[in-house]
């Protein structure tokens, strides 16, 4: 395999990873909460899209906004009802709480959907681009992931809600004094985190099989990407996601695919100690 092909595979994977991690990163950066539910949100988004497609036969891209909105509602409710009550508690409390909620959601999904891997098959063929061969569904997935990430970036930069979220991230007290209702912003942020997870899951189901057993793997990816890229910003997640995709692609080729994930985690541990702000992170957000 030549370098171009490996790089292309890495970029496709990396764009999906960025989409997976951006919501997790936002929640961590703004709420200071490690959301252990994130992996299950992704899988839930994937399953909902799969079943909508399997029963209706309509192109799954149509369902993506619907699934994203459902996940937004779920995320908003979870934050509003549960996490807001303990949001300023130590890490141990918030992490354990989201882990407990994740156990419930995971169990419900296993019972309702069963753990059978499901994948939307679109059969779009593949394109040959200067000797680099890419299946079209993956290219579509990558494009969708990049569009979603770009949309979130635009919302954060230009909308009133987006500016309020950034303000809360920078200084909670000051934002409160400026008249921002912090608890509402927390719930909206968590909702957006879930929305991005659901959308990422919908895109993922078009490219790879999804199953409940993958929740932990997705969560692990989100950890690694956040630490590589830096917390709480969209560009950070994009850089981290692309970096992880390319690193996994190359280390999978050189060392064998079973070591690709290990390399990601080891890199993360090294970065944690050497540069905890991430590659494009800003000091003071940790």
């Amino acid at each position, binding site marked *: 395999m030549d370098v171009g092909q490996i790089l292309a595979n890495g970029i496709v994977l990396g764009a999906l990873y960025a989409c997976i991690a951006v919501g997790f990163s936002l929640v961590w950066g703004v709420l200071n909460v490690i959301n252990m539910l994130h992996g299950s949100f992704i899988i839930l988004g994937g399953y909902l899209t799969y079943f909508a497609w399997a029963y209706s036969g309509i192109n799954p891209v149509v369902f993506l906004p619907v699934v994203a909105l459902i996940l937004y509602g779920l995320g908003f409710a979870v934050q509003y009802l549960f996490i807001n009550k303990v949001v300023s508690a130590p890490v141990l409390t918030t992490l354990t709480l989201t882990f*407990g909620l994740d156990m419930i959601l995971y169990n419900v999904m296993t019972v309702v959907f069963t753990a059978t891997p499901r994948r939307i098959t679109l059969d779009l063929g593949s394109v040959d681009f200067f000797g680099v061969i890419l299946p079209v569904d993956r290219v579509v997935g990558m494009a969708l992931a990049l569009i979603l990430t770009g949309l979130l970036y635009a919302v954060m930069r230009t909308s009133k809600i987006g500016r309020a979220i950034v303000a809360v991230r920078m200084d909670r007290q000051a934002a409160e004094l400026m008249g921002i209702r912090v608890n509402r912003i927390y719930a909206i942020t968590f909702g957006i985190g879930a929305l991005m997870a659901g959308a990422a899951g919908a895109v993922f189901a078009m490219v790879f099989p999804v199953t409940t057993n993958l929740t932990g793997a997705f969560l692990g990816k989100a950890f690694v990407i956040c630490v590589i890229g830096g917390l709480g910003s969209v560009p950070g997640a994009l850089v981290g996601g692309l970096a992880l995709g390319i690193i996994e692609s190359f280390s999978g080729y050189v060392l064998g695919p079973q070591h690709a994930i290990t390399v990601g985690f080891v890199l993360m541990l090294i970065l944690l100690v050497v540069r905890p702000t991430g590659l494009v992170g800003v000091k003071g957000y940790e």
Partner: protein
Amino acid sequence: MTVRRAFVFVLFAVWVALLATTPFSGDNYTVRIAIQIAMYSALALSWNMIGGFTGYPSFATAAFFGLGCYIGALSQIAGAPTVVAWIVATAGVALFAAALGLIILRLKGHYFAIGSIAIVEVLRLVISSWSGLTGGGDGLNVPFLRGGPEFVSQLVLGVMLLIMVIAFAVTVWVDRGRLGFGLKCINQNEDAADMVGIDVTRYKIAAFVLSAFLCGTVGAVYASWVGYIDPTDSFSIVFTVKVAVMTILGGAGTVLGPVVGAAVFVVLEEYFWANFLAWNRAILGAIIVFLIFFLPGGILRLDYRHLWSQAKARHGRIGMAGGE
């Protein structure tokens, strides 16, 4: 105070004695639960050193436990006698924790939590892919303990109880001594603790090693008991969170809390496994959520006098509240 302390010791001694007599009073199932209670008590008491006293959200318990499983199993396969294998596992895990602590204890809060979770994942992945030595995903068969099944479960119960008693003794020693005082200072304010002359790095590493070495022993004994280990079961995040939840359930940072929490949790879990198999994970999750909201300080930190007076007041009598 001394009366209260004596009460704690007596309570613990009675509890250990009760667990130790299960082979004579109960069936094999009861003995198995007693073994699990002793095992999780030892793990929860260990976690309490770093998570309770020091306040560091460590999720590395499964890493130490799993490493103990594999070091114990591999030394036995290499020909070491069982007891030697257990000791090797203990020492190996202690060394690993010291080296790991040097690196990872520089992190704080969320980063420490994520780092400790990553350690579990990395170890699982390395052991799964190093199939030449560890059998990879197929797992390893561990040489069985000699003697009949009855004798083996009695032996394992005895050993686990011994580890539990050692963990308790270490906890009492830490709680009363200079080390515990320093750790509690670090828990409240690490910078201030550093300022008043506590060697923060050394204290934290000591707490980390103390929270690890008995997990190694428990892992090795567990491997000998069940006779088969694999990477997914040995290094699982659910396992790690379970131990932390037990400690919080009883009361993190207390001496008896982890023991109470482990016993309550194991019994509850057994009950839900037996009766609601398909929903047991969700029920455990619901217990965790309930715990965070309604019992944040744990069972031992409940103000029973207050609850009692409330209950009385509700029954229409004149309450004795506010007397203090």
